């Protein structure tokens, strides 16, 4: 007999013991593991839900109609933290972060403070009004660009990201290549992200990276540095898809059965701290979308941040965490263990 999943998206916080087959903390306990952070190496800032696309798997539910974006005041607070604590890396995401009026301020100031800056750039935003100079802007500030391209073919990419996205993405990649991005000798890093176009796990990162390099090179004369494979999280728009297509239980079982204890050590929540558009703090971008902030005893806003206090903090978990521990693991930097 089938055991139905709960209606709510998260099952329990770290302390809850539900006994359910998708209880992440119980699975960790079975392996004598306790999920705690290390030191905060990366501040990942989600500057808002506004996006020029509305991808079917988006865990942010981002779209052109969303109005939640970070104000200048909050952006200044982010920079103050980067400066004060010498945060090594600022990772800027959204939505399409470039559409936030404070985006270029964040990049310039973080770079001036000595931080490495990563931008989660969706490629097609380059064709929006006032964004045509993004390749030159990225180059000027030596930003690391990370861009989603779920497959090297139009049909799969457009099925996930919208009609016409593949063609625009290829043109954007060519423009990035033209200013030096993705070319080994330039030092300008362009990494791509593979997401499965559906309810299945990603392939081995090294293998699919070879396929992408061969196919994008031969078909479109496009180059890039690394391909990151990222598992689709069973939350928000992708969860809606799973439910609509009656794939939720099958997908969750796939994630749970593929639990890999070796992936736990490299989880991004152990070295990341996530900031939302209002300045609230979360262990990761997924928890942010589920409104599951950092443990309350730490304080939950940018003003409460202190590297010593947040190091070794208890990570808040839910059933979606199985998405990051399945198979080779998944993080904003792709697979966390070699397959």
């Amino acid at each position, binding site marked *: 007999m089938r055991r139905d999943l709960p209606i709510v998206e998260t099952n329990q916080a770290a302390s809850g013991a539900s006994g359910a087959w998708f209880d992440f903390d119980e699975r960790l306990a079975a392996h004598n593991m306790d999920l705690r952070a290390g030191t905060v190496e990366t501040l990942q800032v989600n500057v808002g839900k506004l996006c020029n696309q509305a991808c079917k798997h988006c865990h942010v539910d981002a779209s052109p109609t969303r109005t939640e974006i970070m104000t200048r005041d909050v952006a200044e607070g982010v920079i103050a933290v980067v400066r004060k604590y010498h945060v090594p890396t600022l990772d800027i995401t959204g939505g399409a972060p470039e559409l936030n009026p404070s985006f270029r301020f964040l990049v310039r100031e973080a770079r001036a403070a000595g931080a490495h800056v990563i931008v989660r750039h969706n490629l097609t935003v380059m064709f929006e009004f006032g964004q045509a100079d993004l390749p030159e802007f990225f180059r000027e500030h030596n930003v690391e660009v990370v861009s989603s391209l779920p497959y090297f*073919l139009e049909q799969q990419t457009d099925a996930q990201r919208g009609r016409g996205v593949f063609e625009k993405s290829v043109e954007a990649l060519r423009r990035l290549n033209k200013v030096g991005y993705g070319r080994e000798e330039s030092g300008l890093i362009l990494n791509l992200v593979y997401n*499965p176009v*559906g309810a299945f796990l*990603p*392939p*081995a990162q090294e*293998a*699919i990276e070879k*396929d992408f390099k061969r196919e994008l090179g031969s078909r479109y004369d496009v180059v890039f540095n690394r391909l990151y494979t990222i598992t689709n999280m069973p939350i928000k728009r992708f969860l809606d898809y799973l439910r609509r297509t009656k794939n939720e239980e099958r997908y969750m079982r796939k994630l749970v059965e593929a639990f890999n204890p070796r992936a736990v050590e490299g989880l991004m929540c152990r070295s990341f701290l996530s900031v939302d558009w209002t300045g609230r703090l979360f262990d990761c971008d997924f928890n942010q979308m589920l409104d599951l902030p950092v443990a309350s005893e730490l304080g939950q806003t940018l003003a409460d941040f202190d590297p010593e206090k947040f190091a070794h903090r208890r990570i808040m978990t839910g059933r979606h965490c199985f998405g990051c521990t399945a198979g080779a693991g998944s993080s904003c930097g792709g697979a966390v263990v070699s397959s």
Partner: protein
Amino acid sequence: MSYYEEDDLGRFAEMGKHRPDLFEKFMAWYQACQEDGALSRREKALIGLAVAHALQCPYCIDAYAQSCLESGSNIEQMTEAVHMASALRGGASLIHGLQTHNSVNKVSM
């Protein structure tokens, strides 16, 4: 009730309840066959999909369609694999036509 139940695929391990020694030997061999070797996992998954179609096994078709996706193949490549299986099945039938011809010729003037 259908003879083929989707959930049965996940119950495969129940075949190990009786004569687990034999099942364990099978699983060790089966899993070793899936690993990267002279052929990649992706190539092996496509072979598995083609064989699944030749065998017309619904469990295997479901399992290997997923394996192909999860090893990076796309629907065009998977469809070509199915055509290969189908062409082999068709060719195998057709080549046996010579047996018909032989049989006919043997008794014909």
